[in-house]
């Protein structure tokens, strides 16, 4: 039975991969493991007569959704890794107990259950082709939710816009704009732009003001923050004419 073979190989692997999601440190690895689980599921879908879904699973889920995840992971920092030590007191034992309890109970319940009727198989339903069958359903019986889903898509799009996109109220000033502004500001003194720090001084650290032609310091040349914080160095010591011109011979 090829399906059995498929199941017994892929099934355990999927479960292991899923478990791995919980245990690996790096989020990227989790994402890859999840992608693997999803691909496995795609195989299972196809094996169970859901050809269309299987393909969609790979295209939409593994392809698009997981890519989105990875994309965001890149954004947030691909190296981000979780410490797996538990910080919330008592949560780990609860989680382990819950895992065993939940899984155990579910498996035990399913084990006790039987459908109570024969498993029918999809041969009849898929008689006209799986895609056609689904299409009948989607566009006839479930056309209303199908349409409503569109609202969901709009919401999602708009939500992403709201949270991520901020329309600029003022267009960002171009260099030309800035330049024009300088010239039109009335004073031509600054039209050419402010001197950078360290100009004409013997030192060009950010906290060393430029020197004006008369040798005095130009406070406008350093960041306002530094100035107000008093981190401006007295630049007189760096005046060129004060510098000992006797060049010492150095080895």
């Amino acid at each position: 039975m090829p399906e059995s073979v498929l199941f017994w190989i892929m099934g355990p692997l999927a479960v292991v991969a899923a478990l791995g999601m919980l245990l690996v440190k790096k989020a990227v690895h989790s994402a890859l493991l999840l992608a693997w689980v999803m691909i496995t599921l795609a195989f299972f879908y196809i094996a169970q007569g859901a050809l269309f879904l299987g393909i969609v699973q790979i295209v939409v889920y593994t392809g698009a959704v997981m890519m989105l995840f990875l994309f965001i992971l890149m954004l947030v920092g691909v190296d981000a890794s979780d410490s797996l030590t538990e910080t919330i007191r008592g949560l780990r034992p609860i989680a382990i107990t819950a895992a065993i309890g939940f899984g155990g109970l579910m498996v035990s319940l399913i084990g006790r259950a039987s459908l109570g009727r024969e498993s029918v198989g999809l041969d009849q339903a898929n008689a006209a082709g799986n895609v056609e069958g689904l299409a009948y359903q989607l566009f006839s019986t479930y056309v209303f939710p199908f349409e409503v889903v569109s609202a969901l898509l709009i919401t999602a799009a708009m939500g992403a816009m709201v949270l991520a996109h901020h329309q600029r109220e003022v267009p960002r000033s171009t260099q030309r704009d800035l330049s024009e502004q300088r010239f039109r500001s009335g004073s031509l003194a600054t039209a050419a732009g402010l001197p950078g720090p360290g100009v004409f001084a013997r030192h060009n650290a950010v906290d060393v003001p430029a020197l004006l032609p008369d040798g005095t310091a130009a406070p406008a040349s350093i960041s306002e923050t530094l100035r107000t914080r008093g981190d401006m160095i007295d630049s007189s010591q760096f005046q060129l004419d004060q510098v000992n011109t006797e060049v010492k011979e150095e080895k």
Partner: protein
Amino acid sequence: MLVNNGLVYLIALPLFGSALLLLAGRRADRWGHLFATAMSAMSFVLGAVQFYEMLGRDAENRAVTQKLFTWISVGSFNVDAGLLLDQLSICFVLLITGVGTLIHIYSIAYMDHDKDRRRFFAYLNLFIAAMLLLVMGDSYLNLYVGWEGVGLASYLLIGFWNQKPAYATASKKAFIANRVGDMGLSFAIMIAFATMGTVSFIGVKEAAEGSSQGALTAIGLMLLLAATGKSAQFPLQAWLGDAMAGPTPVSALIHAATMVTAGVYLITRSNFIFDAAPTAQLLVVIVGAITLLFGAIIGTAKDDIKKALAASTMSQIGYMVLATGLGPVGYAFAIMHLLTHGFFKAGMFLGAGSVMHGTGDEVNMRKFGGIRHFMPVTFATFGLGYLAILGVPPFAGFYSKDKIIETAFYSGGIKGILIGSIALFGAALTAFYMTRVMILTFAGTPRYDINNPPHESSFLMLLPMGILAIGSVTSGFLLARGEALVHWLEPLFHAHEGHGPEILPPVVISLMALTVVIIGATFAWFKYGRGPVADTAPTNVSIFTRIARRDLLQDDFNESVFMRPGQALTRLIVKTDDVVVDGTVRGVAAATLGSGAALRTSQTGFVRSYAALIVIGAIALIAAIWAVTL
């Protein structure tokens, strides 16, 4: 319904006087005392008229009744506001209004300097009204109204000078002791209604014949309890001594002549019950006997003249109660002693008041001495009263008290001899303490500042004293002559059953009584009359004297048995209420708050623990499924 024979006016007049004086306030200060006296006097006149009319009727038709209106009527419980004036009531009516009016007159002078005299007279009038209602009510419930009414008046009068804390306490004590007795009256009424379906005297009298011994005994005992409260009998006697805090006219009127005898009235009125309930009757005798000794013993040790007289009152009422317990023969003698006692004791109290008035409100007899020289009239009236109470023939007490002693001896068997002896011994004690009072007060040498001697009282005070002294002399003879009172009262007390075997001839008993009186008086003379008397009480006295001075430990007893445990109980209950009852409430509130705060910590802020909570919830649900589908 209509006022057809005017009985109600007897009560209405003093009641009106009281209400008017109280409501008018200070405006009535100038004429209030006169008005009140007039009201009392008019009431006396009306009483006399009724008496006269009554004399004109057959023995069987003397009782008159008046129904004013239906007072309480619920289901089978019907009580009219009704009055009954019969041979027994009229005695009291005349005594109350007569002595009352005299004391009103006396008080005009006695309270002359008190700025609240009007209020005093209002209270006096209130008392007269209530006391008249007590003796004229035609049912136990009406009696009850008067009963508590006199208690209220007594409370108000004892506490008339309630700015003194001790006096205020004394008034409260009197009221509460009386309330204990009142409870007995309540019980009696309840039992009567439950077993007989009626509470009127006539109804109960009729039903008593068919009633069970048990019920009658119960009623009798409860009535006795009521009587002990009101008449200061053992064991509820303790209030009377303190009641002397009230102005002396009050002591004379209420705590000697009238109110305190209400218990005797009650038992006498309920003769049909006691006659059928020998156990209750026996207890009445015992209570009377104990009290007569109790009072007499206290009387021997008291230096306060009023308290000595109060103890004497207690003792004398003990005689009366004892008499009422002796069955049909005793009732008339009890009443007779009650009436004579009303005269001589009131007279002596007024005398004491006069002495106090003359000595600047001194009551300690050890500060008196030789007053007869300064207050001859007072001495005379007091002396007549003294002779009367001793039972010296032919003064009033001789006729009444000897009869009681006699009846006691004749009541049969060992019991007769025993109570006769007690009564006799009481007489000796009476002679002793009264002689002591006489000697300490009027004889001997003055033990006060001789430069500021006592002065005789005014005419308005002496007049009532004189009248009462005349009563002390003559009343006994008048009442006993031809057994006038006995015959007068006879229709009320069923058959004249006669008494037990005459173990000694009456003359012998009279002689014995006279003998012990002389012994007692002589003993007192030896002890106090021969030498100077210390002006402070000696302290190196026997334990018996000390106990007697402490009123035979009656207050100590009450304090340790009732008051302190009561206070402890009160504190306990207050504490319990706070800690247990309210504490439970607060505890529930605190527990609610606490559990809220505790549960609140489940909201850790971590989304993962919220998820865990959901998972746990899910597990619980599937576990439940697992269990039910097992």
